[in-house]
């Protein structure tokens, strides 16, 4: 089965090498790293162990994911899994994400750290994510347990249908609205997310989350 792992990366030179090696060791051959205009050596490191694509300008995580998905589709990917570059996810979870799609039980799977494990998650983070869940339900009528998880998997058909138009972090909302618009079958899969100093430093701040919420509302209104 042609599973493509798409990894958006921005200034991740410290972690991307380890992440790519563990993916390779687990037998994943088709890894697409989209370096989103990093200022460090992310691209050079990624080149050794993946299809490394480079955004010449920083366009945001949503834009990078979309580029990776487009590229994977051009390589005839059957299943596309998005993964984070900062080592927060477990490689073993990719299989769990892809399985329901291979078995045609779902068009898209969404990872959930709350069905699974969120190790060392700070309290504030938990609150923000839970608020996000309520928010997504109110805006899109989709009941999920984790609104911002970067671990997702798509069938190639679903990936072709989904239009990610938000460049920045609001792309999470795009997936929900596109699921509804295309009437895609989605499934939440329990996964594990590890929090360490590195990922917390890179993670979203409270202010950013509020900004994100406002953007999601605006987007909904403008449509």
């Amino acid at each position, binding site marked *: 089965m042609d599973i493509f792992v798409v990894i958006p990366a921005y200034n991740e030179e410290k972690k991307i090498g380890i992440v790519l090696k563990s993916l390779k060791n687990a037998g994943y051959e088709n890894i697409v790293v989209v370096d989103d205009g990093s200022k460090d050596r992310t691209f050079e490191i990624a080149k050794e162990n993946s299809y*490394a*694509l480079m*955004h010449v*300008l920083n*366009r945001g995580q949503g*834009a990078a994911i*979309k580029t990776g998905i487009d590229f994977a589709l051009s390589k005839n990917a059957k299943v596309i899994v998005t993964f984070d570059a900062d080592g927060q996810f477990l490689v073993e979870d990719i299989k769990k994400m892809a399985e329901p799609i291979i078995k045609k039980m779902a068009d898209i799977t969404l990872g959930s750290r709350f069905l699974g494990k969120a190790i060392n998650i700070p309290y504030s983070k938990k609150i923000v994510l839970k608020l996000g869940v309520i928010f997504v339900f109110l805006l899109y009528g989709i009941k999920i347990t984790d609104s911002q998880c970067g671990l997702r998997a798509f069938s190639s058909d679903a990936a072709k249908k989904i239009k990610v138009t938000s460049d920045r972090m609001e792309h999470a909302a795009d997936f929900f609205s596109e699921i509804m618009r295309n009437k895609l079958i989605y499934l939440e899969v329990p996964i594990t997310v590890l929090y360490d100093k590195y990922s917390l430093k890179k993670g979203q701040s409270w202010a950013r989350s509020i900004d994100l919420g406002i953007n999601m509302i605006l987007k909904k209104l403008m449509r």
Partner: protein
Amino acid sequence: MISLIQLFAFAFVTFAASRAVLRAKDKKITVFELFFWLCIWGGLIIVVFFPELTSYLADVVGIGRGIDVIIYTSIGLLFYMIFRLYVKFEENEREITQLVREIAIMKKKK
């Protein structure tokens, strides 16, 4: 007798209008856009030099004072222009992303 504000307004409008004409000459803006800006600046001159005209306008549309008519219209116009800019800006952002994406994929395929 010309007041200070009239002098300032005149100097500013001459400057702004000349900019618009130059931009049009360079084909950076269309003739229609030039017309639009000349109307705006021309309107400003008329209002500054003949303020009593605005009172007449105020009576016609039923707003208390002449100056209020101008302020309301200006704010409305400003909002509209900000909206247009916003739309244009979003469009540009999307196009830049599209370009960056195509370049990334093209470089890889080579």
